């Protein structure tokens, strides 16, 4: 009935290796020297309740270890015999070990992991970063954006050449338009900043709440309503805390990519980050478009004017003037125009 298993015993005090035989009888594990009288080693005999012993997890090749409370342990290489012995006791592998040693469970785990990553990417991460971004005070965002305008002024922006009357008119008109939105959703603090650009027609929002409007885009559109559309879109970014959300999302993706590929190469780890982040970029652009649509609707303005913005920028793109920065990593212009015109 009992199974005898060959093992090596180490007492935890010296490095001497004792060849022993292990048996379990009535819940007591007994070991005794296998070759008595060999060498000068004193024969070993030890009896211990199996409830006090700790068995190492099952691996396919590595020797198993049975540890005594005092640090002494047995090393067992005969997997088959030891498995029979364990079978006769109440020892069971943990759930994790059973998963690790089973291909079907492993493949299920791999599938679950992939599904989880996709769901996180498509839904969980955007939702979580939205909640986090909203719960952070605006002052945090403003601190992050501090100095961004100074930096841009030094490198790609120059003082505006638009007449001050035109600037004042744009600012004043946008203020009246946003007033009607304030009742629905509070308008975040913002400031319209006019600049001449060295990189073509552009408009963008900074975390500090500044909306930079370039002379070039005002000239290109040559239409007050359309300029309002551009501003509404940028205000949408601020209102929905897009900059903070993007920051959280790209950090999370970067961290995940580093876990998977960081070992290999920092450059390779960045490729998925950039590719995956594009979707988030397009998503927030659509959200900002929606905000602009809502603002136009609240003021009874024509959505045609909003669509006109993207038609115009799309034309410039098609004309081969290079992709305007305004459109990079943005949804295709034609798609946006269609979306705006079909919005309810």
């Amino acid at each position: 009935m009992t199974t005898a298993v060959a093992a090596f015993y180490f007492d935890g005090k010296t490095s001497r290796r004792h060849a022993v035989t292990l048996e379990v009888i009535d819940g007591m594990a007994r070991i005794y020297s296998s070759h008595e009288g060999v060498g000068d080693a004193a024969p070993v005999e030890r009896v211990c309740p199996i409830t006090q012993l700790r068995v190492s997890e099952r691996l396919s090749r590595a020797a198993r270890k049975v540890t005594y409370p005092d640090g002494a342990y047995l090393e067992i290489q005969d997997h088959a015999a030891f498995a029979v012995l364990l079978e006769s006791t109440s020892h069971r592998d943990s759930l994790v070990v059973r998963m690790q040693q089973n291909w079907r469970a492993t493949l299920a785990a791999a599938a679950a992991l992939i599904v989880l990553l996709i769901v996180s990417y498509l839904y969980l991460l955007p939702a979580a970063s939205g909640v986090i971004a909203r719960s952070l005070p605006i002052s945090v965002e403003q601190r992050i954006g501090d100095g961004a305008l100074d930096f841009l002024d030094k490198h790609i922006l120059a003082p505006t050449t638009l007449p001050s009357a035109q600037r004042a008119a744009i600012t004043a008109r946008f203020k009246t338009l946003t007033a009607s939105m304030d009742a629905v959703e509070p308008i975040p603090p913002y400031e319209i900043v006019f600049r001449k650009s060295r990189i073509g027609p552009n408009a963008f929002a900074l975390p500090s709440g500044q909306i930079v409007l370039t002379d070039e885009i005002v000239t290109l559109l040559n239409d007050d309503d359309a300029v309002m559309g551009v501003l509404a879109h940028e205000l949408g970014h601020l209102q929905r805390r897009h900059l903070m959300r993007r920051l959280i999302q790209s950090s999370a993706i970067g961290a995940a990519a580093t876990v998977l590929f960081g070992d290999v190469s920092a450059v390779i780890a960045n490729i998925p980050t950039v590719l995956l982040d594009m979707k988030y970029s397009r998503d927030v652009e659509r959200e900002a478009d929606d905000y602009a649509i809502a603002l136009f609707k609240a003021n009874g303005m024509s959505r045609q004017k909003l669509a006109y913005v993207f038609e115009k920028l799309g034309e410039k793109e098609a004309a081969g003037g290079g992709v305007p920065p305004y459109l990079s990593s943005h949804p295709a212009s034609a798609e946006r125009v269609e979306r705006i015109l079909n919005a309810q």
Partner: protein
Amino acid sequence: MSDTFDQPGQPDFPAGPNFSAPPVQPAPAPVEAFSFSGRGSEYFRIWIVNLLLSVVTLGIYSAWAKVRRLRYFYDNTTVAGTSFEYHGNPMAILKGRIITVVLLFGYQFAFKLNALIGLLVLIAFMVAMPWLIWRSLQFKLYNTSYRGIRFGFRGNAAGAYKVYLWLPLLTFFTLYLLTPFTHQRIKRFQHTESRFGASHFSFNGSVGAFYKTYLIGFGIYLAGFVAILLTIGASAYPFVGDQSFGAGHVFSFVLVILALYAWTFLMYPLFLTLMQNLIWNHTKLGEHGFRSEMRWSRMMFIAFTNIIGIVCTLGLYTPFAQIRALRYRVESMSLHPAGSMDDFIADNEPSGSAMGEGMTDLLDFDLSL
């Protein structure tokens, strides 16, 4: 700091049988080779389950994952018929990791808030780092055993500050010319302060040997660099004076850049090989010596094919790659006993803190070599 030649991807039990010293049979003791019985297919299963549970528990399980991973590596590393054992406690590791994450967030936030506060925090980190590394070494070694005898790390904070703060600072201010010297001092500190039970390791690698190894590594890099320029590069511009710049030229140009990037990447396994050999060939445990006979061409080949495998499988090959590299590193090692190795005795020492451990492994400090 100077320990940049370890594969960051390598598990924390990195230079194969790290600090792992070992005993053997009686008198005219034969050479004992280290063997590694881990297999990619088995480690893949452990890896994927670890990954899933870590994601599901938002990272909490990662401490248990680390213990399972290290146990797998240690249990499968054998010398003289006996394997190693890892005793790290997941709760201790988890605590270390939580504190580290909180500190790192605080650090990031401090910088965003105010550059001066950020700078102060950075200085505080630099000052704390040697202490953390020292505690981490204690934790790692104390939690490793062979034949029932625990390893340990003595050392003191002053020694740690000298090699992990003052020398790196000095190296920085001397244009990194002291790098091999600092590296030698770090290794000397690590290896002479390590012990197996009550027996001490010793290290006799000289500063000159470190400079020589760095020069050899750098020479190999330069030779490869020039060879790439002369072969692929020359095909891009076959004749001097030919000013036409066609598609073929662009292609060759891209090829040169890619080849140079790949070659530069391969400096990692190159230095890893040279360093593992240098360090273990000058380390002894009592009177017992070690040999490490890695070949850099082989290690480069493994690293290169591993990367291709990982990229082509979107990361799923990673566990196979780790096992493959680790196996080569471990199996290049052997133990040269000077006599009976049955007589090591245990020593009782405190265990070091997992705080240091959590910190250094989140910051990707590999202390292996």
